[in-house]
C-alpha cells in the first residue's frame, strides 16, 4: 500500500490528473463556452424599443450573435447602448422562444394543450375563420392590438384592418397617444411634440425620466454625455418629481412635490411669468390664440388663459398649498425659467408607456408657449412626417365598408360617463366594452408583439375581456403571458432576425427613419409578422389581397424606402459627426443617396435617414390659424363644462378610488433603466444589474420614507402586503429618504408569470395594482396614483 502510494507520488499521474481536473471543471455543461470562428460585425437598427438606436452585432462565422454594441456612426445613440439593448441578444436564444406555430387543443391557458401545427394549416385556419366572418357580414368582429406604433408594421396592420373591414385596431397605450391629441387640439396636426433637448441650456423637467430613457434611452444617454462632458454641465436640469429618481439624483436641483401635482407647479410658474411679464409677449400676441379673452364662432365671449392663470387658484401661496413647495422657491423658479434664454419645460415618463391627462399636456405646453418655445427655432417642435412610400388605395369594397361603418366597439357601446369628445387609442375603453358585452361580439383578436395580459395597466381588464373573445391569435416570439392564453400562436422572428423599421424618434423634433435589417438567419421555424399578415390577406383574396400586394415584408419595406427616395428629401447619416439637433426647422437637407435602390441598400446596411424639423406653426390647421391655447377644437367637438377652463390648460386632479381611511397611503409606480417594461421581459443579464434593495431573489421591495416606516412600525427588509383597491401583492420594505412620506413606490417591469425560471415569479407586477383613470377629454387610460395600504405580512 505504502509502496503504491510512494510510487504513484513519484509518477506524473497525480499531478497530471490534478491539472486535468482543473480543466475538466471548466467544461461543465452549464459553463458557457463562446463559439469560435471568424468574428464579423453587422450594423443594424435596434427594434427592441422605439429609441431608434444604431447598433452592431458581433457574430461568429456570421451565424452566432455574441454581442450587441452601439454603432458609433449612428447619430441617435452615437455608440452608446442601453441596458436592454446590451442584454438584447438573450431574447434571440431564450428558452421561452416559440419554435413553431402552436394550436391550443385543450382549455385556454393550459400549457399542455399546445400542439405544433404546420404554417400553412395555421394560416389557413385563421384565414378561413376571417373569411367566414366577412361572409357573415361581421368583419368588425376582428380586433387587434400591436406594440409597434412607430414602424411600417403599424401601417400594414391598419391597411389590413381597413381592407378587411374592422375599426377595432389598437396599440398598446403610450404617452404619444395623448401628446398627439394635444397636437391636434393646439395645432390641428395629430403629431406628438418633440424637444430639441440636446441644445437646451436649462431644462425644467416635470417628472420626465431623462436618465431613465425618456422616449429614446440611446438618445438621452448621448445627450447626457454631451451635457456632462469634461465635468462641465452644459444644461442645467431642474427635476420636479415626487421621488428622488435617478434623474432627480443627477439633476442640478430636485424639487419634491406630491405625486400628480407637477402640472399645478407648472401653472404656478406660468402665473408668475404672466404677472411679472416674463413671457414672450410678441409671440403670445401674434401666434397664440386664447391667451387673451376670445369670442367663439357663435359670438359667445370666453375668458382667456391670461385671465385664468392669474386667478387665485395659481398664486404661489395656492400652489404652495398643493405642492408643498415654498412660495419663495416658486418665485425663484419662475424667475429663473422666465429669464433664462432657451429654457424649456419637458414632461413624460422614461419609457413613455402611459398617456397623460389632456389638461396636463396643455399646461406644460402653455408654459413652453409663454417662453415662445413653440415656433421655428424654438425648443419644442412637432414630429415631422416621414414621406415613406404610400400604401395602395383601398377600392372601397362593400363588405369592408359595411364593417367600417360600425363604430369602434368602445365608442359604439354604452358607457358609464359622457363619451370622450376627442377619442384616442382607447384600449382600456375597448376592453371594458368587450367584457361588459359591447354592442357586437369580438370573435377574433390578433395580438402582435404585445403582451397586454402582463403589461397593460390594470391588466385584469384584458383577462376579463378575454373571456368574451372567441379566438385569441398571438403573433409573438415568446411564450409570454398573452401567448399562454392564445388559441393559436403564429411565432414571429425576434428583432435582429427579420426586417423591420423605426419611423421617428419619440420626443425628438427631427425626422428619422431606420431599417432594422436581420443580422443573422432565423434559427427557429418563425416568420416575419408582415409576411404572416400578407399570407392571410392572400388567402382571403380579392380586395384584401389587392390591398397588400407585396411578395414579402422585405419587399414592402423596400417599396416604402423607394417612396422616401422619390420625395428627394432628407439625407443618410452613414458616418460619424451628423448632429441632428443642429438641424434648423425647414432647413433644406441635401439628399446624399442616388435612388431608391441606393437608399435601401444603405438603410439595410445600418445607416439611417434624417430630415430637418418642421416649423410647428407652419400651415396650422386650427380654426384661428394660430397655436390654440383656448381649444376651439374641443368646443367644436361639443366639450361642455361649467366655465371656460374646459377649453384652457388648467389643473384638476381626479382622486383615486377608495377612501383615505381604508387606504391611508398612495401608490406610485416608476420605471427604471435596469428593468424593461410592458411588452418585453427583462433579460436575465439585465436583471443582474437591479439593486438588491429592489429585487432580492424573488422578493421585490417597495420604497417608503423612514418616517412613514416608523409610523407603520416597519423596519428595513420587513415583509409586507401592499393593497390597493385593484388588488394586493406581497412585498418587502426598503427605507429610502428619497421617497415622499405617505407614498409607496413600486418599480415596474417585474412579477412575470411566464417565460423561464430567471424571469418568472421574480417580484410583483405593478400593473395589477395601479389604477387607470379614463381621461375625460380623450378617454385614454391615464395613471398617476392609487390609494394604498401597507400592512405587515
Amino acid at each position: 500500500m505504502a509502496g503504491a502510494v510512494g510510487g504513484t507520488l513519484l509518477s506524473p499521474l497525480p499531478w497530471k490528473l490534478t491539472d486535468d481536473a482543473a480543466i475538466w471543471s471548466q467544461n461543465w455543461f452549464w459553463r458557457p463556452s463562446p463559439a469560435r470562428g471568424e468574428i464579423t460585425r453587422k450594423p443594424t437598427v435596434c427594434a427592441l424599443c422605439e429609441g431608434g438606436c444604431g447598433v452592431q452585432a458581433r457574430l461568429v462565422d456570421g451565424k452566432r450573435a455574441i454581442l450587441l454594441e452601439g454603432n458609433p456612426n449612428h447619430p441617435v445613440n452615437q455608440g452608446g447602448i442601453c441596458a436592454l439593448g446590451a442584454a438584447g441578444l438573450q431574447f434571440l436564444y431564450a428558452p421561452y422562444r416559440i419554435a413553431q406555430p402552436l394550436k391550443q387543443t385543450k382549455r385556454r391557458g393550459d400549457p399542455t394543450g399546445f400542439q405544433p401545427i404546420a404554417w400553412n394549416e395555421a394560416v389557413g385556419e385563421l384565414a378561413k375563420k376571417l373569411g367566414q366572418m366577412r361572409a357573415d357580414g361581421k368583419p368588425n368582429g376582428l380586433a387587434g392590438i400591436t406594440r409597434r406604433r412607430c414602424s411600417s408594421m403599424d401601417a400594414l396592420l391598419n391597411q389590413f384592418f381597413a381592407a378587411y373591414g374592422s375599426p377595432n385596431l389598437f396599440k398598446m397605450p403610450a404617452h404619444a397617444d395623448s401628446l398627439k391629441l394635444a397636437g391636434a387640439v393646439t395645432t390641428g396636426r395629430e403629431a406628438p411634440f418633440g424637444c430639441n433637448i440636446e441644445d437646451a441650456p436649462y431644462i425644467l423637467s416635470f417628472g420626465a425620466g431623462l436618465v431613465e430613457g425618456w422616449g429614446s434611452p440611446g438618445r438621452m444617454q448621448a445627450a447626457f454625455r454631451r451635457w456632462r462632458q469634461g465635468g462641465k454641465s452644459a444644461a442645467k436640469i431642474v427635476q420636479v418629481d415626487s421621488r428622488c429618481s435617478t434623474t432627480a439624483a443627477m439633476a442640478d436641483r430636485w424639487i419634491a412635490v406630491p405625486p400628480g401635482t407637477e402640472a399645478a407647479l407648472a401653472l404656478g410658474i406660468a402665473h408668475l411669468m404672466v404677472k411679472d411679464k416674463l413671457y414672450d409677449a410678441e409671440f403670445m400676441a401674434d401666434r397664440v390664440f386664447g391667451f387673451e379673452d376670445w369670442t367663439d364662432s357663435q359670438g359667445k365671449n370666453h375668458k382667456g388663459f391670461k385671465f385664468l392663470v392669474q386667478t387665485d387658484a395659481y398664486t404661489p401661496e395656492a400652489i404652495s398649498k398643493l405642492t408643498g413647495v415654498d412660495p419663495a422657491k416658486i418665485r425663484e423658479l419662475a424667475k429663473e425659467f422666465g429669464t433664462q434664454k432657451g429654457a424649456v419645460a419637458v414632461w413624460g415618463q422614461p419609457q413613455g408607456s402611459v398617456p397623460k391627462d389632456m389638461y396636463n399636456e396643455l399646461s406644460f405646453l402653455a408654459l413652453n408657449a409663454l417662453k415662445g418655445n413653440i415656433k421655428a427655432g424654438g425648443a419644442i417642435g412637432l414630429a415631422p412626417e416621414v414621406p415613406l412610400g404610400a400604401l395602395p388605395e383601398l377600392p372601397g369594397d362593400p363588405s369592408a365598408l359595411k364593417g367600417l361603418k360600425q363604430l369602434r366597439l368602445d365608442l359604439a357601446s354604452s358607457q358609464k360617463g359622457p363619451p370622450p369628445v376627442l377619442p384616442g387609442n382607447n384600449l382600456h375603453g375597448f376592453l371594458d366594452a368587450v367584457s361588459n358585452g359591447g354592442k357586437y361580439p369580438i370573435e377574433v383578436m390578433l395580438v402582435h408583439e404585445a403582451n397586454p395580459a402582463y403589461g397593460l395597466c390594470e391588466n385584469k381588464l384584458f383577462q376579463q375581456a378575454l373571456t368574451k373573445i372567441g379566438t385569441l391569435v398571438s403573433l409573438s416570439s415568446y411564450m409570454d403571458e398573452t401567448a399562454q392564453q392564445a388559441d393559436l400562436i403564429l411565432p414571429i422572428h425576434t428583432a435582429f432576425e427579420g426586417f423591420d423599421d423605426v419611423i421617428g424618434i419619440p420626443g425628438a423634433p427631427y425626422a428619422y427613419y431606420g431599417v432594422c435589417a436581420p443580422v443573422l438567419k432565423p434559427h427557429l421555424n418563425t416568420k416575419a409578422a408582415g409576411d404572416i399578415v400578407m399570407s392571410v390577406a392572400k388567402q382571403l383574396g380579392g380586395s384584401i389581397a389587392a390591398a397588400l400586394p407585396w411578395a414579402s415584408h422585405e419587399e414592402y419595406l423596400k417599396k416604402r424606402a423607394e417612396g422616401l427616395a422619390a420625395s428627394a428629401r432628407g439625407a443618410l447619416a452613414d458616418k460619424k459627426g451628423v448632429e441632428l439637433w443642429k438641424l434648423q426647422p425647414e432647413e433644406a437637407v441635401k439628399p446624399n443617396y442616388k435612388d431608391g435602390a441606393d437608399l435601401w441598400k444603405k438603410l439595410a446596411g445600418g445607416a439611417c435617414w434624417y430630415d430637418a424639423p418642421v416649423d410647428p406653426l407652419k400651415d396650422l390647421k386650427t380654426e384661428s390659424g394660430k397655436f390654440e391655447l383656448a381649444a376651439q377644437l374641443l368646443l367644436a367637438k361639443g366639450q361642455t363644462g361649467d366655465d371656460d377652463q374646459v377649453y384652457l390648460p388648467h389643473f384638476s386632479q381626479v382622486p383615486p378610488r377608495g377612501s383615505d381611511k381604508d387606504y391611508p397611503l398612495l401608490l406610485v409606480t416608476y420605471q427604471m433603466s435596469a428593468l424593461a417594461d410592458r411588452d418585453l421581459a427583462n433579460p436575465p443579464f439585465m436583471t443582474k444589474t437591479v439593486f438588491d434593495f429592489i429585487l432580492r431573489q424573488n422578493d421585490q421591495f417597495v420604497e417608503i420614507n423612514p418616517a412613514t416606516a416608523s409610523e407603520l412600525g416597519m423596519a428595513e427588509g420587513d415583509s409586507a402586503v401592499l393593497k390597493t383597491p385593484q388588488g394586493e401583492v406581497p412585498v418587502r420594505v426598503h427605507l429610502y429618504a428619497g421617497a415622499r412620506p405617505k407614498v409607496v413606490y413600486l418599480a415596474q417591469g417585474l412579477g412575470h408569470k411566464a417565460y423561464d425560471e430567471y424571469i418568472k415569479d421574480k417580484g410583483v407586477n405593478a400593473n395589477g395594482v395601479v389604477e387607470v383613470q379614463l381621461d375625460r377629454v380623450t378617454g385614454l387610460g391615464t395613471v398617476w396614483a392609487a390609494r394604498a395600504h401597507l400592512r405587515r405580512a
Partner: protein
Amino acid sequence: MKEENKSASGKVVGGVVFAVGFIGALVFGWVIGPDLLYSQKAQPINFSHVAHQDTTCEDCHAFRPDGTYVGIPKIDKCKECHESQMGQEKSEQILVDEYIQKEREVPWLVYAWQPDNVFFSHAPHQAKGVKCESCHRPVKEEKVVPYFYENRLTGYSKSTMKMVDCEKCHAEQNGSNNCEICHK
C-alpha cells in the same frame, strides 16, 4: 529462533510487497496511466499536406484582415478547389459528397485547441518571428494526418500546449509572464 526467522522473512515479504507496489505504481503512473487517460481518435477524413504542396501555407492558414487567425480553414475554402472531385482519393470523395455538397463543415479535431480561459493570438507570435514548428508539428512531408489523442477528462488534445511551455518560452524570449497576458 523460529520467531526471529519469521520476522526476518516477514521483512523480506514486506519489502517485496512494497517493491511490487512501488514499481507497479511507477509503471502504472509513467507508462500505463497516461495511455489510459487518452482515447485515440481518427480525423473524420485524411488530409494530406503533401498533396497540397502546390499552394502556400498562407493560402489556407491565413490571417484575416482584422489580425485574427483562421486556423483550420472552413469548408468554403475547400470548395474553392474541390467543388467536384479532382483525384481518386477516397477521402476526397467523402469530402465532396459528405461535406461540400451537403454544405457541412468537416468536424476536424484540433491538435492545439486551447481551453476557453486562455487567450491566444497568433499575430504577435508571428510578428516576433516564432516559427509554426515551434508549437505545431511539421507538416510539410505529412501524407497522413496523425491520430488525435483526446484526454478523457478534459476533452482536449494530448498535444495541447501546457501553461508551463508558454511560460518557458515567454521567459526565454523576454515576453511578459503576467497573468493577464493570457488570461483576460
